[in-house]
């Protein structure tokens, strides 16, 4: 199992960079800008470097939003194909990561809606894979925590789409309200409202699952 403890810090640094338009772009941004220019002039190898740099972030976020590897893989592929198609729209003075995160959220929304229609049609059962048990603990705890994650996933998945995405980015990804608002192209007050409602609903759902406590 691989952990990714620094991913949130990476996103946050990317957002901080994106918020200071007058500041000189950081070396990483310049490096990406060079890769983008090479890609736009037809160099596929340069785009492969772009994918290598961001694939883990994109797939991880997609897994958290969609819950299954299969959907996350589809989402990530779609995100990078869209990114390739619209690469010329990227502001090279700004970091690429927030742009990709926004695209990931939008692609995941589409996939989620399609999946919902499929579930409604075929009554398939959902088995989330993004939150499996921590294998470092004893078997009993492993099973218990696995069940709890499944339960939380169901609660999360029962939220309205906007609330689910906002609370995932804020509480699970650990982004700030401003960063979530930037990704969702929304206002901070809207994000606060979505997150607050989602937290209350999650609490109620947890209480209910834990035995009806309110």
């Amino acid at each position, binding site marked *: *199992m*691989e*952990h*990714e*403890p620094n*991913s*949130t810090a990476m996103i946050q640094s990317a957002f901080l960079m994106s918020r200071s338009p007058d500041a000189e772009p950081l070396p990483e941004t310049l490096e990406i800008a060079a890769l983008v220019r090479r890609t*736009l002039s*037809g160099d*596929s190898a340069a*785009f*492969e470097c772009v*994918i*290598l740099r961001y*694939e*883990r972030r994109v*797939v*991880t976020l997609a*897994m*958290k939003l969609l819950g299954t*590897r299969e959907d*996350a*893989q589809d989402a*990530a*592929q779609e995100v*990078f*194909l869209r990114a*390739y*198609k*619209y690469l*010329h*729209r990227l502001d090279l003075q700004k970091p690429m990561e927030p742009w990709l995160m926004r695209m990931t959220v939008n692609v995941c929304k589409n996939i989620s809606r399609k999946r919902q229609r499929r579930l409604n049609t075929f009554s398939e059962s959902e088995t989330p*894979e*993004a*939150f*499996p048990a*921590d294998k470092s603990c004893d078997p009993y705890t492993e099973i218990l*925590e696995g069940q*709890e*994650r499944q339960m*939380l996933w169901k609660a*999360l998945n029962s939220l309205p789409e906007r609330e689910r995405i906002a609370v995932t980015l*804020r*509480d*699970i990804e*650990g982004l700030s*309200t401003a960063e979530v608002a930037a990704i969702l192209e929304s206002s901070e007050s809207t994000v*606060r*409202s979505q*997150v*607050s*409602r989602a*937290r*209350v609903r*999650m*609490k109620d759902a*947890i*209480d209910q699952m834990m035995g009806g406590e309110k």
Partner: protein
Amino acid sequence: MSCAHSREVLALFIEDDLPTVQAERVRHHVNACRNCQQICQQLQKSQSFIKARLKSPFYVSPSPELLNAVRQTVLSQIQDERQTLGWGVKIERALTLAFRKHGYAVAVVAILVIISASLLGQMRHSLSETHGRPAAVFESKNMLLRPERYREWVFVGSSIGLEYSVSHEMPTSSTPDSFHNVYVNPAAYKEYAKTGAFPEGTVMVLERVRSEIKKEPGLHGIYEKEFIALEASVKDSSRFQGGWGFFDFTDQDGKVKAKTQALSDGSCRSCHEERAETDHVFTQFYPVLRSARMES
């Protein structure tokens, strides 16, 4: 703050998500309210539970195989994607890249293209009559084809029974005469508005429409009933003495003909020559033409 509506606010408060001023207000309330303190504790508990179970480091990172599959699929599809990029995206990309490289030069070119396209559109519109089918089409020297789509021309005015008469007595009939609806071709209208002169090729069309009196309780007046005649005058100095030819497209049965010879008796011409205010045209009775001259 009302305790009954505070759960959402408290859900933000416990995670430091409230703006400073509001957070201070809530803190002040919570310190004094046992109910809210309890709600805060419950919310903190559920938040801790969610984070402990779902936040890093407990989620599994995508496997190298999964990442590799994503990468390979994308790279293989990009080859096709390059060929299947729509024209819209290709043009957008070319313009964006050109603008990035040459900045203002591209902007100036784009503006010039837009202005040229606009001017071309206007020229096409104004030239369509002169370079397309003219307003007056002659089959032979004096045989005029009935003007097409003249109702899309400029309507210059209407009158009822307005005719010059040799008699100096006032008419006594209480029955109104026909309406005279007059149109002029747009190119001639523009030229007249600009210069005050009617150009060669000017066509005036006069439709006569029978009038009807309506006298009913709650409804009275005169209105146009059915078309009874169609006449035209054309300015063409190469064909007609005095510059203008006059035509009547109505046959003896009252039907409108597709073509007609110029009237040869000279009755129309003499009256138009003597009494019309501007070059055989009764502009004194056409307010649209008068105002066009005044506005130009």
